[in-house]
């Protein structure tokens, strides 16, 4: 085997992960190259041999054949031939226990953005307690690899150690105090902040005191929002704040939904002057100085700042403005995944199904490294906007395999099922969401969805439960509390949940908070004996109570109810019909009007007009009883043809209800026999007669 074949063999065995034979071949090759008498070897092969040599032995340092000097010798051979050595420096830089500082300085000069080298250098600097250089080094590494979150732990460690080192110094320069305050704010270490605030020798400015006290405050276990707001208004808002301290506060306020304060804090955040960093200027002698003076703002804080700006405007529904801030952020830091996610969510909120940029932006965010759970939720929101609920459900299911359910994900799951018409399934996740996670901002949306679902399912008790939750969201001391309760009285009345309505209305009546128009409902409930008249002791309903010049639905409704109680069917029906014009619940009011007229045989034409209108405007609220009465009215007034058609319609629409008993079948048959007789259709008449007798006989 000549040398060329040997190199090919090594490459192959590394590729096949056959490390044992690889090691053997490397040792043999090394010995061969250092023999005195050997046939000449081509430089290309020698270079690639030494590359493999470094690659192998830097990985398997536990091997008996590992020798650091030999590895360095291999590196110098590469240098001699002038070959690329980036990767080799990186590999050797991983051997922290062997390398010295000079090696790292040389290596960083070649390859300033290598994570392995930066880490190795930072560790070396930590060992000799040059914490400032190490911190600069890690800051730089984080600006190149923002995703390397594990570095933040190391950085925190270094910052704590450095601030302790500085604190123990007798005399501090001004620049050092600034750095000390910065690090104390970032690390939030209690003892350091205390020392800084309590010792007079530091001469801190107001701004620095504020920043320190913010850091101290947000690090506390118990967080009191009201206290925080007062502190902000009286103390912290008086000076500018650094990005870190400002973001702490914004975070606090945002998570509590205090958007006004968020905007205020944003105003006072001031960024450090950013010193442009050009790694190309880095040369061996200056490596230490370079990292010592490294003072770029943490990129993530800048991103966070713009992200919050955009989110703030998103919540105010100023979507164009929000997009503007996203674009500014994109100029400052290009293509950051969280910025892209925010942009996607804003575009989704714009609700433009034909515009596909939102989808494009979200997919882009995925490729730029947005975390999978966040991406899945945003996509689910997007498909929810499009109305394709199957996709929403499958996305949420995938989300639940990566993360525990949150209010948001459960809301989307419920919404998806709701959109597909699976009401029972939809209710399950929503109810869970209501029980869990107190602080979910989706609670009100969830609550609303539950109310809608219960209406569709005709589940009045659950509906009322949801309603009560909604009522509890308004604080008793606020005026809207009573307004909302009055509003829900009407709501329950229109739901025909009279018993629940009665409970609520009594409470309101007892503390004199019942609105004028709702009094009519109270009178009605007493009249219909949902409430006992002896307990309530209301005055009798008289003409005086009628609103003379009715303007809106409330006036018409109360008039209708008063007329009803007084027994004036025609006026009552007219008022109900007028109320229907104003209401979203047309079917409910038209039905009330219709039932008034059926009491009075002389109003049959009006009655028929009303049922006609009901069928036209809200066919879903037409029930069996109404149709039966339509037929009845025709029959009583000798209108044979419409009576015949109407009964047929009733049978086809409600076959189960109308045919469930023999007596109703015989009733149907005898009615249709009379109708056909009147129309002169003898054969049909006979058919109905035989139908009638057959039922009769079986009895």
């Amino acid at each position, binding site marked *: 085997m000549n040398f060329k074949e040997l190199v090919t063999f090594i490459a192959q065995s590394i590729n096949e992960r056959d490390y044992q034979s690889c090691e053997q071949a490397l040792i043999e090759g090394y010995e061969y190259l250092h023999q005195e008498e050997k046939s000449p070897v081509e430089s290309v092969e020698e270079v690639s041999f030494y590359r493999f040599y470094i*690659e192998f032995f*830097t*990985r398997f340092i536990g091997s008996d054949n590992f020798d650091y000097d030999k590895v360095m010798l291999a590196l110098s051979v590469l240098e001699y031939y002038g070959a690329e050595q*980036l990767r080799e420096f990186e590999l050797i830089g*991983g051997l922290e226990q062997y390398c010295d500082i000079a090696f790292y300085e040389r290596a960083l000069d070649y390859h300033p953005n290598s*994570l*392995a080298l930066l*880490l190795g250098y930072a560790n070396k600097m*930590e*060992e000799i307690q040059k914490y400032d250089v190490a911190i600069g080094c890690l800051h730089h590494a984080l600006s190149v*690899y*923002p*995703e*390397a*979150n*594990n*570095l*933040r*732990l*190391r950085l*925190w*460690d270094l910052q*704590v*150690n450095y601030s302790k080192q500085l604190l123990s110094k007798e005399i501090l320069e001004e620049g050092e105090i600034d750095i000390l305050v910065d690090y104390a704010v*970032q*690390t939030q*270490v*209690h*003892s350091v902040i205390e020392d800084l605030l309590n010792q007079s020798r530091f001469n801190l400015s107001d701004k620095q005191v504020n920043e320190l006290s913010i850091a101290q405050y947000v*690090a506390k276990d118990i967080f009191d929002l009201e206290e925080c707001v007062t502190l902000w208004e009286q103390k912290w808002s008086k000076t500018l704040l650094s990005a*870190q301290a400002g*973001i*702490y506060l914004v*975070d*606090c306020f*945002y*998570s509590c939904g205090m958007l006004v304060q968020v905007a205020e804090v944003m105003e006072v955040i001031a960024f450090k002057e950013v010193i442009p960093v050009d790694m190309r200027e880095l040369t061996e002698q200056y490596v230490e100085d370079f990292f010592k003076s490294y003072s770029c703002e*943490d990129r*993530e*804080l800048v991103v*966070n700042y713009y992200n919050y700006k955009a989110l703030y405007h998103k919540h105010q529904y100023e979507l164009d403005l929000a997009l503007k801030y996203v674009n500014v952020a994109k100029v400052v830091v290009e293509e950051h*995944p*969280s910025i892209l996610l925010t942009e996607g969510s804003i575009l989704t909120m714009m609700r433009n199904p034909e515009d596909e940029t939102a989808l494009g932006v979200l*997919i882009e965010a*995925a*490729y*730029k*490294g*947005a*975390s*999978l759970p*966040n991406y899945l939720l945003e996509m689910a929101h997007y498909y929810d906007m499009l109305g394709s609920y199957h996709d929403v459900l499958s996305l949420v299911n995938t989300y*639940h395999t*990566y*993360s*525990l*359910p949150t209010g948001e994900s459960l809301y989307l799951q419920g919404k998806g099922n709701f959109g597909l018409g699976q009401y029972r399934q939809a209710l399950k996740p929503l109810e869970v969401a209501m*029980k*869990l*996670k107190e602080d979910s901002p989706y609670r009100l949306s969830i609550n609303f969805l539950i109310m809608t679902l219960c209406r569709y399912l005709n589940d009045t008790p659950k509906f009322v439960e949801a309603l009560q939750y909604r009522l509890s969201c308004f604080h008793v001391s606020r005026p809207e509390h009573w307004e909302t309760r009055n509003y829900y009285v009407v709501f329950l009345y229109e739901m025909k949940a009279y018993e629940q309505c009665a409970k609520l209305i009594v409470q309101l009546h007892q503390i004199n908070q019942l609105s004028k128009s709702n009094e009519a409902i109270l009178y009605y409930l007493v009249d219909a004996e949902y409430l006992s008249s002896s307990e309530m002791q209301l005055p009798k309903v008289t003409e005086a109570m009628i609103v003379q010049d009715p303007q809106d639905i409330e006036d018409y409704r109360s008039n209708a109810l008063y007329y009803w109680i007084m027994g004036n069917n025609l006026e009552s029906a007219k008022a109900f019909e007028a109320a229907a014009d104003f209401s979203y619940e047309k079917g409910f009011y038209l039905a009330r009007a219709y039932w008034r007229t059926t009491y009075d045989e002389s109003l049959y034409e009006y009655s028929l007009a009303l049922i006609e209108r009901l069928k036209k405007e809200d066919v879903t609220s037409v029930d069996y009883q109404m149709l039966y009465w339509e037929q009845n009215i025709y029959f009583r007034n000798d209108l044979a043809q419409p009576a015949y058609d109407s009964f047929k319609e009733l049978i086809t629409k409600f076959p189960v209800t109308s045919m469930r008993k023999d007596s109703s079948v015989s009733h149907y048959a005898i009615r249709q026999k009379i109708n056909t007789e009147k129309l002169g259709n003898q054969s049909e008449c006979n058919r109905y007669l035989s139908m009638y007798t057959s039922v009769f006989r079986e009895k």
Partner: protein
Amino acid sequence: MSECIALGSFLDNPKSISNGLLLYYFQDVLLDTPFGLDPNNEEHVYDMRRFMQMHQIKNSKSFRVFLHNLKKGEYFHANVKDIIEEIYHFDEVAFEKHLEQLEGAYLKNRYRLLYPQRYAIVGYGILGFNYALYSLVCRIGGVVGYITEKEVYTRHCELSEFISRVFVNGRELQENIMLGIQFYEASLQANPTSFSRKGNYWNIVRELQNDQLNSNPS
């Protein structure tokens, strides 16, 4: 090396290895108890069941199988090890080329996450994350009676031995757990220092560190 995080604190109280993960996944946890969650708290039981569902643990048997495999270094760790083997020898150009052949944004993200760290973790992958998850699943299994208090204790004694074999200091271990979470969520998003705790493992770790510093000032 580091005066802030000593491995000793993990070895004295091995179940504290999963404290960070407990805080990350659950609310109002009881860090000092063996199970970490309250069996009488409905929310805790619900969350815990959902967590088991996430990892397809349906009963006591699959619970034990899952634990066994985690300890052996299956699942996530095995996945990371394969990827590292695959990309260890690539230089940047070759890596970019390799990345182009992969399909799916999230597979690519995982490769991109591991690439700059490949030299640092080639020895132990994300074994630390595996161990932390082992400890977490082992502890919360007690909530529904898959495991007794005593067994939790003995399993953790054994675990601390495994940990001390692989990791030199506590920082390395904690960094490894952080990397594991990021790998699991296929995320390249940075976690800056901020207040909101939800979904931000780094904040939780920082708070734990701060607590530790405050309790024994050196």
